[in-house]
């Protein structure tokens, strides 16, 4: 019954393939732009945000930072709890944006 070993080997390999390929592509959970007109100069910062694990939390986080002058857009990827923020360096510094991304937030459940 050497063919029996095919089953656990297939299970292991297919699970490893699943984990390995999830970094090969990513689709944003939330993409939102906060300004009507895109500024002439835009910089980007990508950062891990603790607790960003679902669409609801992404929307809560967007509510939290969306009113900050200089923040242009937010894209979240909940698989890696990561957010990408575009900002206008004329209005807000990179360190200030990083501070926003590192500040704790609590998504209030309705």
């Amino acid at each position: 019954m050497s063919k029996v070993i095919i089953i656990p080997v297939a299970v292991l390999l297919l699970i490893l393939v699943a984990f390995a390929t999830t970094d090969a592509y990513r689709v944003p959970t939330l993409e939102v732009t906060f300004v009507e007109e895109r500024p002439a100069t835009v910089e980007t910062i990508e950062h891990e945000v603790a607790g960003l694990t679902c669409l609801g939390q992404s929307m809560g986080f967007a509510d939290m930072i969306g009113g900050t002058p200089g923040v242009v857009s937010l894209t979240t990827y909940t698989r890696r709890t990561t957010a990408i923020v575009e900002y206008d360096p004329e209005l807000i510094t990179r360190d200030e944006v990083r501070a926003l991304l590192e500040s704790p937030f609590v998504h209030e459940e309705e």
Partner: protein
Amino acid sequence: MRVLRTVVQLIFFAGVVALMARGLAGATPNTCETYCPFAGLVALYPLIRHQTYTCALNELHVALFISLVGLTVISKKSFCSWVCPLGTVQEWLWRLNRRIFGRTVRMPHALDRALIPLRYVVLAAVLGMTWTIWQGDLGFRAYDPFYIIFTGFQGHELMAFSVFIAVGILAVAYFVPYFWCRYLCPLGAVMDPLSRAGLLRLRRVWSVCTDCGKCDEACPHAIPVSEVTELTARNCTNCLECVDACPEAGALELTILGK
């Protein structure tokens, strides 16, 4: 064969229990849902239609679902009897029952036939409601015994009746082997057509078989193993209980496409 399968089952069961413990202790935001392949199927419609994920779904769910499809094509519904922690719990309950009563309790054939289509109804209801009424929210959580049990009954969106659903299903599974899998599991319904085409399948060698019927008695899925040459039944999970029960070495063998 059972030793190898039990080891694999224990690895996945221990993993999901550890995840549950860490979740209950607040050490991780992840739950058993994070690694559930059925969530990948649920994620497909909003992903294709709106190019986004809803609720707590992400690309890992989709990847795990695709891997599950691959596993089913290779080895039928092996996921159910080798990996799924809910399948494992149901199997342990069935074994306990068999140890006490000395035999497998079978559903009446007519009732069994009547209930099998129910899982397709569950599948249609879950997908339809998730993609419409629940607007992408995972409302099925309150009804999913896997989520209810392996979040320690503390999962998101659970209702008071969720406990009764989970306990009720396990109680019935004590008497009817793999009750959830056989009649209600929407993931099982999805895998049905692929399972029939599974490459790894059991074959009977008639020259060795003595027609003792022990394989039929051993099968937890009520498949008439003794009546077929090649086991293509969609409910076969390659648990190999029939092979373990067979007293004649070589009468039942695992083959690739019958060879």
